[in-house]
């Protein structure tokens, strides 16, 4: 038990009971699980399940050990369905077997050699799987029943593959094959970079919520090393985080309008967004808020002139935005296509422990900024919008309200930002410590788990919100008109480049004419 983190060493036989007690009785939300190859340290593998008790703002870490040879650990998917993906990931990458569930390849290519587990420490950093130059193609007969969306498709700005099984114009089933954007981040961080460089790597996990990732990483490391980061730095972090939330949500609204064919709305939303982008550049020196986060503080300060400029821009934006939304929401087609489409009922939302606006639109009142306060959020007062309908309109409205909330948060923080340094001078990071941090990204809770090592993390695990939101799509799209599929897929604001850090999955059956 440390400040707000509870470490439980769960023996294998009690793991399931403990997990079910936490998840079902104490209604903690399941965040992720991390497999670690600790053989160099203590000759065991270990799996750590991360829960958060959002009401008492507690992190609960369930750690279970497994033997070095033939590691076996009981699966908790029966009591915690949300653990499905991350257990499979641990199985693929570390060869840990989960007893009491069926195993399938999630993240590794089908033709990946058996018994090679890339995240084990004895696998060399530059191990390259065999490249296949050609991709399989669908035969004409199956094409008419199956609508492939992606990997390169106007409805997605990233290479992902959804197979929609349709009858006429209705979707009857969905198959998701992802992990195209895998770039080997975790292995890269554990083998090439040092603590400070990883900040820049973490940013590039995702171009929209990059700053969330680097903040999350930095906070995790600081927590592990027990560093006291200057207050001013924390304020600046929160401010930039909110700027990023605003531009991300505006971006989403614009794209949503585009998907319902309301291009004027798209253009005007992005016109407003451009001001925010300018703001981001003013505050961080990069339009995508890259490159000011370091372990122990930030690199760029906010002076009086910038502060005034920020407030002024925010004032314009909020007034223009309100006016535009009022108009756009009343466009008949927008209404008809947002209301009642892509519904996600609450019970499913809880079971899959979805994140962010998706959860809040389905009546789950959780927001890491309030429940697990970090950076400088404890100094700002804001309300968390929650809707019960769980349809696309609800998700849109949640985001609209969050934009306005964020604006007020920034104004509050700028108002009471303290003087002082913005960077911790000299510090060292001890080995073998554990830090886990949740940061509320625009898409939901972002989880970073850091186990410190010599000069670089021993294990660094990233869990992006989309990772836990994608399984919900199956329920949202079922029996929906095909025409709504892109909008619904977009409505979880998928960020595949976050999700796919892990290992390439080969997705077959795409239409070659689409390229």
């Amino acid at each position, binding site marked *: 038990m440390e400040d707000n983190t509870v470490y439980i060493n769960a023996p294998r036989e009690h793991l399931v009971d403990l997990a079910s007690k936490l998840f079902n009785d104490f209604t903690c939300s399941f965040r992720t699980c991390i497999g670690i190859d600790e053989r160099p340290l203590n000759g065991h593998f270990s799996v750590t399940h991360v829960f958060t008790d959002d009401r008492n703002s507690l992190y609960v870490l369930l750690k279970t050990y497994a033997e070095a040879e033939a590691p076996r650990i009981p699966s908790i998917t029966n009591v915690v369905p949300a653990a499905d993906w991350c257990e499979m990931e641990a199985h693929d990458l570390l060869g840990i077997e989960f007893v009491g569930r069926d195993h399938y390849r999630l993240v590794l290519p089908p033709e990946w050699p058996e018994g090679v587990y890339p995240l084990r420490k004895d696998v060399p950093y530059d191990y390259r799987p065999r490249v296949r130059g050609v991709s399989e193609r669908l035969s004409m007969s199956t094409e008419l029943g199956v609508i492939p969306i992606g990997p390169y498709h106007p409805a997605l700005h990233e290479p992902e593959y959804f197979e929609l099984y349709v009858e006429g114009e209705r979707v009857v089933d969905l198959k998701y094959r992802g992990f195209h954007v895998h770039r080997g981040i975790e292995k890269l961080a554990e083998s090439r970079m040092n603590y400070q460089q990883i900040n820049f790597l973490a940013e590039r996990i995702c171009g929209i919520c990059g700053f969330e990732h680097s903040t999350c990483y930095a906070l995790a490391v600081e927590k592990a090393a027990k560093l006291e980061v200057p207050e001013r730095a924390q304020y600046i972090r929160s401010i930039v985080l909110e700027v990023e939330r605003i531009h991300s949500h505006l971006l989403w609204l614009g794209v949503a309008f585009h*998907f319902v064919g*309301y291009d004027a709305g798209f253009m005007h939303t992005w016109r407003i967004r451009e001001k925010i982008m300018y703001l981001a550049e003013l505050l961080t020196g990069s339009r995508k808020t890259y490159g000011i986060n370091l372990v122990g503080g930030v690199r760029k300060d906010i002076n009086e002139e910038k502060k005034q400029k920020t407030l002024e821009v925010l004032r314009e934006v909020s007034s223009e935005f309100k006016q535009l939304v009022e108009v756009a929401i009343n466009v008949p*087609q927008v209404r008809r296509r947002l209301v009642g489409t892509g519904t996600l009922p609450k019970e499913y939302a809880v079971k899959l422990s979805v994140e962010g606006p998706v959860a809040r639109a389905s009546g789950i009142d959780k927001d890491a900024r309030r429940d697990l306060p970090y950076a400088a959020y404890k100094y700002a007062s804001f309300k968390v919008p929650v809707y019960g309908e769980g349809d696309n309109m609800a998700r849109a409205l949640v985001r609209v309200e969050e934009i306005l909330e964020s604006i007020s948060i920034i104004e509050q923080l700028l108002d009471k930002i303290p003087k002082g340094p913005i960077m911790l001078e000299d510090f060292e990071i001890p080995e073998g410590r554990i830090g886990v941090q949740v940061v509320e990204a625009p898409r939901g809770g972002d989880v970073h788990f850091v186990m410190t090592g010599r000069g670089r993390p021993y294990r660094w695990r990233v869990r992006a919100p989309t990772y836990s939101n994608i399984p919900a799509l199956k329920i949202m799209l079922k029996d929906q008109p095909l025409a709504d599929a892109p909008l619904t897929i977009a409505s979880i604001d998928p960020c595949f480049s976050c999700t796919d850090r892990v290992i390439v999955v080969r997705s077959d059956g795409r239409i070659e*004419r689409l390229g």
Partner: protein
Amino acid sequence: MLCTAITLLAGTSLPVFLDGLERKLKAALQSRIGPPITQTLYDLLKLMIKESKQVHTVPYIILYFTSFISCALTSMFLITLYTITWDFMLFALALSLLMVSLTALTLIPLLIPNPFSYIGGMREVVLSLVNESAFVASVAIYIVSLHFKAGFSTPSTPHLLVVTIPALAIMFTSGYALTGRPPFDIAEAEPELASGVLVEFSGALLALYLYSNLLKRFLVKLFVATMLVTLIAGNGVLSVVLTCLITITLWILFTVISVTLGRSRVDLAPRTLAKYYIGLFIIPIAGLVVLAYG
């Protein structure tokens, strides 16, 4: 002879520049500069020189295109002639030709072995079934209402209110829907279709298809304009010029409408339209019956 040349020249070149104008106008409403007014022309010229990837059904497609363009141009010529001579036969011919050409164009995407193109094509068919029929019917009723007393005559007030105005309303809507602007650009613009009916075309074929669409837009508007001019049925040349002007105004009007709207869904659009049409058709038909036997 000269008249023919002029009509065909105007009819073939105007749509391209009007489309350029439309894009400019859209841009202005989205508070940006937008492309030069000749942009559409540039696009088409560029596409002509691009390599075109062949699909094995190309011969049929070409056939359909030729049939469409020939029908369209003929009908355009006839309708202009009609605005000069006010000979009803010409008009009937032009209308039928218009329908034939539209159908030809609608069926092209179904020839392409690609699921997106196929789905898009089916959607197009569903929509145009509703709209074309409505268009023809409304035009017919409109003409009848003018022909009620022998020869063209501006109809009496009850006619105007009960028969002519509703017929015009339907004509406008179906005409608008036929031009495939939002909210009725379902066939190609829906994102999950990857530019649906266009997906497989490239190079010259694509240019041909885009141009045919522009021609179609122009033709439909031309018809609506002619109908309006028929109300006055003035002397030849004047009415031709008038028709042209009205067509251009219609184009601009439609553009502005399309900017402020989103895209309807494939299962919603035909249903809504059908309801709307049926609702409006009852009035003029009932009116005609009453005025005839009352």
